[in-house]
């Protein structure tokens, strides 16, 4: 099979998300079904989901979801992990054999905690250590790929249509307080399992519809801070940018949105709130290389919340709706109606206007 770099496929995508602000659990079946009315936005070369709050029994452990090309690679990777982590539980991720999903790699999950002695000797905080480990495996260990690495969350992805991927991974058996979903129509790279969305690092996950034109500028900048873009897929770099801005730099979600979807200088100049004007000028000046240009609509998942964002020109569609304590986000209203026929307050956020939804403190 051809991998990234061996072929270019010139050619849209579908995204969807749901969250309960009260932290009520929703099964993965609803989000799977939300992809059905948007079937034509994908072409069967990738589908995926991220669920938050799905592993309450292991909530204090990092959940590594991994693809392996062979048993040998798995054994080798497990030996590497055991030098650094205490693995409390490991298993094959349960899947269903269905005709629509074929050629699956070996798919495992590990619930693990970093060894204290290793953290002390490396003088790293836990999250930084886990992020570095994930990046090391993905960049250096051929045939092994970590596609999910957060606590009490997990990504599930495959080559296929998203509604089939949900069935393949038995998502109806998982319950989460928030879910994101993606249907892929790859524009530049071939579809393989690792290249399906969501792209994740720690508890951050990104689903993306679009094609960013600043990919290489963003990649060159972010790789200076230890990230490695291994897939040539634009969404991967967005995930690392969000990790860098939020976790490493400590920006708020709104500030990070103002970096990647910065308003035009003319829009900043026209601001009448001078503090806001100053802040935007500062952010654009500090992080010019992290401005993401070209069309995108993304949903960023994180522990306890979601953020939806469009590029500043709004070159992709995104609709938000609500019902009681739940908020729905999708590329199309039809998908929201499939999750909640009586959704209210349907609206489309403006380009560059982040929509942040958080679960009540203590409810997740």
């Amino acid at each position, binding site marked *: 099979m051809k991998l990234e770099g061996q072929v270019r496929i010139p050619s849209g995508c579908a995204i969807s998300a749901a969250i309960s602000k009260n932290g009520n659990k929703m099964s993965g079946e609803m989000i799977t079904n939300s992809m059905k*009315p948007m079937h034509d936005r994908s072409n069967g070369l990738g589908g995926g989901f991220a669920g938050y709050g799905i592993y309450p029994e292991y909530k204090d452990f990092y959940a590594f979801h991994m693809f392996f090309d062979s048993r040998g690679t798995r054994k080798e990777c497990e030996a590497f992990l055991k030098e650094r982590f205490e693995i409390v539980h490991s298993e094959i991720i349960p899947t269903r054999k269905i005709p629509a999903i074929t050629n699956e790699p070996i798919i495992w999950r590990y619930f693990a905690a970093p060894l204290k002695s290793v953290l002390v000797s490396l003088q790293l905080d836990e999250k930084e250590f886990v992020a570095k480990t994930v990046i090391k495996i993905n960049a250096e260990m051929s045939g092994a790929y970590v596609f999910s690495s957060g606590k009490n969350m997990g990504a599930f992805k495959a080559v296929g249509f998203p509604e089939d991927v949900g069935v393949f991974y038995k998502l109806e058996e998982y319950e989460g307080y928030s879910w994101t979903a993606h249907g892929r129509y790859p524009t530049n790279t071939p579809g393989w399992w690792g290249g399906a969305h969501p792209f994740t690092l720690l508890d951050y996950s990104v689903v993306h519809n679009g094609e960013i034109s600043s990919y290489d500028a963003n990649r060159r900048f972010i790789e200076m801070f230890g990230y490695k873009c291994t897939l040539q897929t634009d969404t991967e770099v967005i995930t690392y940018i969000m990790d860098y801005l939020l976790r490493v730099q400590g920006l708020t979600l709104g500030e990070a949105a103002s970096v990647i979807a910065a308003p035009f200088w003319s*829009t900043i100049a*026209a601001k009448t709130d001078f503090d806001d004007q100053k802040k935007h000028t500062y952010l654009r000046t500090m992080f010019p290389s992290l401005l993401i240009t070209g069309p995108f609509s993304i949903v960023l998942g994180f522990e306890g919340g979601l953020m939806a964002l469009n590029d500043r*020109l*709004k070159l992709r*569609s995104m609709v938000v709706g609500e019902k009681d304590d739940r908020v729905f986000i999708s590329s*199309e*209203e*039809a998908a929201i109606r499939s999750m909640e026929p009586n959704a209210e307050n349907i609206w489309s956020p*403006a380009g560059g206007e982040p929509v942040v939804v958080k679960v009540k403190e203590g409810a997740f």
Partner: protein
Amino acid sequence: MQIIDAANLDYRTLNEALRGAETDYIAKDCRGQRFIAAGMSDINLTIEGIPGNTLGAYLNNANITVNANAQDAVGDTMNEGKILIHGNIGDAAGYAMRGGKIYVKGNAGYRAGIHMKAYKDKIPVMIIGGYAGSFLGEYQAGGVIIVLGLHKDNKRIVGNFPCTGMHGGKMFLRGRCEDISFPKQVTARRAAPDEFDEIREYLSEYCSDFSYSADELLSDPFTVVTPDSKNPYKQMYVAN
């Protein structure tokens, strides 16, 4: 009159059903099917549920009524006919439309009327009842766009960068629009009384469709936007 249950139909099957012998159809429980009524003539279609993207593309002379919101690219490249939307519409409505009418009760997303064009007696008309998003009338080359701003929240009647690249046609925005900045190649000024005559017929029709009073609306000031030059690109080409 034929009622079609669209819940489990894909767009191809739904459109085939609309090509039957009837002239009046109700498509119930639509769930995002794209291309509904694309290229069709001489039918009256009422849509219940949410129609998918590109509703009424290349519409020739059909009437479509949507009782809810519509998604992106309504009336893409339509030639003739009328699309009536009782809710809001998504982005890029009336994309390159070259005739016919799109009347929207609610708001429009980004890029409404992008690249509308007119030719002789073919004059496309789009009326938006609420507000319009950014890039309204982007590259507008002809036709008429009217935004009424009848929405109740405090949103501006149009977002940023209206009329970018506009080089033909006319835009009417209710109100004085003092807080809106237009690009250099267009002129925005208060509409003169005789200019109301150009839009009175359309507005009367719109008002009877959605139960407003045209006289009341036309008693308000309107801003009219027109491009300064018929051919803003002429200095970029060799004269011949």
